[in-house]
Each structure stands twice: as structure tokens, then as C-alpha cells.
């Protein structure tokens, strides 16, 4: 099986694994805000430092963490390259036609790349350390206010967790169909971009059909196990806010405060 890291739970027992999923979700949001609030490298350094601490406490192997970044490496390089080439700055290093490479451009690109990497690592840490079921419970619990305006929060949360569960299965299936089509002489590697996109159709159609079939069977299996929606349901795993969560909350609050203070007292842009 191809190694799919995104959205995959990594089953070890750690401090971070045991945190309340609601807290982890809120922390992720706060963290993203902090990353974008940070206007200089000191701020980002604080964010990065906090993330390293989380990684250590989560007992997720470093390779696994870095693999999450690998998925967005292309995006990071692409945006960084664009910024290096087109950012308007004052200290010009090189100039050719419409392209100018400036000191400010280089710094800004590095800044942006770092931001993206932190963002990806932090969000994948959430799925590494939280089972889809407790993630769903967390989302459901946080969105409870929406139930008052008749939003089907339970159904939405369940859809999310089932989607997460089926990612590796569908990835596997894609690989299998791809190989089957290759065995029939399909060519995915040559031709221009349009030809290649067209070549994906024989993969997508069977994949979609199979996804519908799976959905149908899953629906039957859920029906057979007395699923009737969220009304009468009870929960085996109850969310509880414990001492660990309090510590994590304080650390998170300190982080945001740190970033904000740095923004105020160290106004040097980089």
C-alpha cells in the first residue's frame, strides 16, 4: 500500500493523544492565527518552537511528521519561487527583463515557506494524534450552537469521519485501477498536460463507480446496525476536559500572547 499520511491516525499513547479533541481543534485554529499574526522571524520562531515541543510530546516519529510536509513541498517551492522572482523590494541583487531578485523578496519567500510548513505540520499533528471518531465528536461538540438553527451537525461530523476513514481505501483502489489500466496498455506518462488529464478519465470513472457502490454497502451496513441519525444516540467515549487540557490551554494562550507581544515590541519586520 502506498503510504498515505494525510488524515491518518498514528496509534501511540502520548500526552497529546490524550488531550480533549475540542481543545486540539481550538488550538489548531489559534495556532494558524498566531502564524499569520507573526510579522517577524522572532514570532515564527516562537511558533516553530511550540510546534517542536508538541511533536516531542506527541511521540510521533520525526519521519512521519516530515512526510506530511513532503505532500506540499511543490506548493511551497512554487509560491516561494514566484515571490523571489516578482517581489518588489529595494535591495536589488539581480535584474533581468521583468524579473528582479531582491533581498526583501528572498526574506519574504522564506517567511512564507516557513509559515506553510508550520501550518501543514500542525494540522497533520491533529489527525496523527486524534482518532477520526474523537475528532468527529470534537467537531460535533464545538458546532453544537449551530443545532439551534437546525444545522445537521451530527450528520456533517459523521460524513467527515467516514471521509477520513475511506481516504486510504480509495487511494489503494486508485493504485489498483491505474495498474489494471496500464496492463491494458493505458499510457499515463507521456503527452502534454491535456493528454495526461484525459488519460485520467479511465481511472476516475471506475473509481467513482466503486465509491458509489461502497457508499451503498456502507449505508446498508449502518442501517443493519440500527443507525437512525443522531437523536437517540449515546456516546461510548465521553469528552472530558482534564488537567492535561488545562496545561495545554495555558501553553496555547501563552503562545498567542507571546506572538502578539512580539508583534508590538519587536516591530522590525524581519
Amino acid at each position: 500500500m502506498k503510504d498515505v499520511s494525510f488524515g491518518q491516525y498514528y496509534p501511540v499513547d502520548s500526552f497529546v493523544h490524550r488531550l480533549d479533541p475540542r481543545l486540539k481543534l481550538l488550538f489548531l485554529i489559534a495556532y494558524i492565527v498566531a502564524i499569520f499574526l507573526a510579522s517577524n522571524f522572532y514570532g515564527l520562531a516562537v511558533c516553530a518552537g511550540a510546534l517542536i515541543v508538541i511533536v516531542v510530546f506527541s511521540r510521533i516519529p520525526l519521519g512521519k511528521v516530515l512526510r506530511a510536509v513532503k505532500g506540499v513541498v511543490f506548493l511551497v517551492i512554487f509560491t516561494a519561487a514566484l515571490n523571489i522572482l516578482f517581489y518588489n523590494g529595494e535591495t536589488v541583487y539581480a535584474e533581468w527583463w521583468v524579473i528582479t531578485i531582491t533581498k526583501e523578496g528572498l526574506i519574504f519567500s522564506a517567511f512564507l515557506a516557513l509559515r506553510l510548513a508550520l501550518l501543514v505540520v500542525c494540522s497533520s499533528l491533529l489527525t496523527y494524534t486524534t482518532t477520526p471518531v474523537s475528532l468527529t465528536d470534537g467537531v460535533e461538540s464545538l458546532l453544537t450552537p449551530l443545532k439551534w438553527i437546525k444545522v445537521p451537525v451530527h450528520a456533517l461530523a459523521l460524513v467527515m469521519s467516514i471521509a477520513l476513514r475511506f481516504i486510504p481505501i480509495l487511494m489503494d483502489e486508485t493504485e489498483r485501477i491505474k495498474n489494471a489500466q496500464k496492463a491494458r496498455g493505458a499510457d499515463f506518462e507521456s503527452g502534454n498536460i491535456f493528454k495526461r488529464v484525459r488519460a485520467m478519465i479511465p481511472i476516475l470513472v471506475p473509481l467513482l463507480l466503486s465509491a458509489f457502490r461502497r457508499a451503498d454497502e456502507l449505508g446498508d451496513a449502518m442501517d443493519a446496525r440500527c443507525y437512525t441519525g443522531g437523536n437517540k444516540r449515546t456516546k461510548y467515549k465521553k469528552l472530558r476536559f482534564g488537567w492535561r487540557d488545562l496545561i495545554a490551554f495555558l501553553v496555547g494562550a501563552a503562545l498567542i500572547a507571546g506572538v502578539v507581544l512580539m508583534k508590538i515590541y519587536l516591530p522590525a519586520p524581519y
Partner: protein
Amino acid sequence: MKAIEFTNVSFRYEDDSPFVIDKLNFSVEEGEFVAVLGHNGSGKSTLARLSNGLLIPDAGTVSVFGVPLTDKTLFDARKNVGVVFQNPDNQTVATIVEDDVAFGAENVGLPREEIGKRIDFALRAVGMQDYRNATVARLSGGQKQRIAIAGVLALKPRAVILDESTAMLDPRGRREIVDVVTRLNKEEGITVVLITHFMEEALLADRAVVMNRGEIVMQGAPAEIFERQEELVTYNLALPRIGVICNRLRAAGMPVENTLDAEKLAEEIARCV
């Protein structure tokens, strides 16, 4: 008491298509272990779906433990009759074993402590108690299917239907499943309906039923059914080679006992010689 009872049941998927199940009368006694055999399209899967209200018959009635299936009794019927399907990947809701087993028990609104007990019971019944916190995706096919059975058992059903639940497994996984359901039937007294096209799996059942084009065409003790080899062939069911050898030996005058297991046949022959 009858666990499942079909009275003159007819069913078709489209209004203008032929009946998949045609005026079927069929029943399973409480505590019985019945194997339903039939080739593809014989209507055996439809039988499973009609038994717990996933499909509603066009004519006739289906009763579950004495209660006719209607919209109002559906929920209780599903608590009493659990169905395990063919593809283990498509019937697991959660990523972690215990979360998935809990799903059914959560659906019927049991209190937390009771759900915990049910998970213990169900995982022990299928011999997976050491995998409570494992990731379902990392298990073997046979283990995944045992988790699917546990998920059904968490509702404490009085009957379990396995709808071709062994079809996608390797021989070892198949044996695991047959062992588990045999034990459930003998030790927990759960009624078992095993729908399959592997004839050797039917051997342990109290009764074998052969379906063809929506009708029951043969019925009786598995050993008796397997003796009617020519008849089975007309329903596109081929006896495994060991069974054929058995029948030939008996025809030639050697009183071997019917079996589909090579080792056991060897013992039988040794006994007769």
C-alpha cells in the same frame, strides 16, 4: 419459536423485472444453524436483506421472532437479527476497533458502561479481545470480518446472518469465520444463517438449503444434500473434489462417512480398510 419466517414472500428490484424471490416459504428455528447455498443470482443475498428489513417484500410477510416486519417493528427486528456483509472494508464505520464495535450499541442509545461491557463481550466472542485499540485497516481480512461480526454482536442479536461474509477471504480467514459462528451457535445459542457458495462451509450446519432462481430447491442435512451430486450440478453447484471421491467410494461399496475434508476422508478410508 421461529427466528425468521418467510410466508409467501415475493420480491423484485424493478417493477418490470422478474421476481428475484418468488412466493418463498422458508423458516429458521431459534438456535438453529442453517447454511444457504446457491450460485450467483440465486436470490440468497436478497434473502438476507429481506430478513432484517433492508428490503421490503412486494408480497407476503417476513416475521422475526414472531413479530411481522413493518416500519414500526423494523428497529427492534434489526436489534434481534444482525447481518454481516461481504466486504469487510465497506461495513466498518470507524478507524479503531473498539469505536467500530461500539457503533451499533451507540445507535440504540445504551448507557456508556453497558457499551463498554458489550464491546468486551463481542470482542471476546470473536477472539479479538487483544485488538481493542488496533487500527482496523492494519488487520487481515479474516480479522476485519471478525470485527464486523463483533460490531453486530454488540447489539446482542438473537440471530446473525452472514451474507457471503467469507467470499472475499483467503482459506484461513474463511476457517476463522466458520469457527467463530459455529462457536456462537453452540455456546451462545445464537441462531446462525450462513449464506455462502463454498460448500465445505455448509458441512457444520444443522441444515443446508439450496436456492436457485429465488426458490428453495433442496433442503436437508448437509451430508444428505452432498450425496445428491448430480442434482447439485443442475443448480450450478459443484461438490468439492473430496466430496466427489466420498460419493464414488460409497457407490463402490465402501461405507465412508460424508466429509469435505481431505484429512478426515483419509481417516475414514483407513477405518474402512
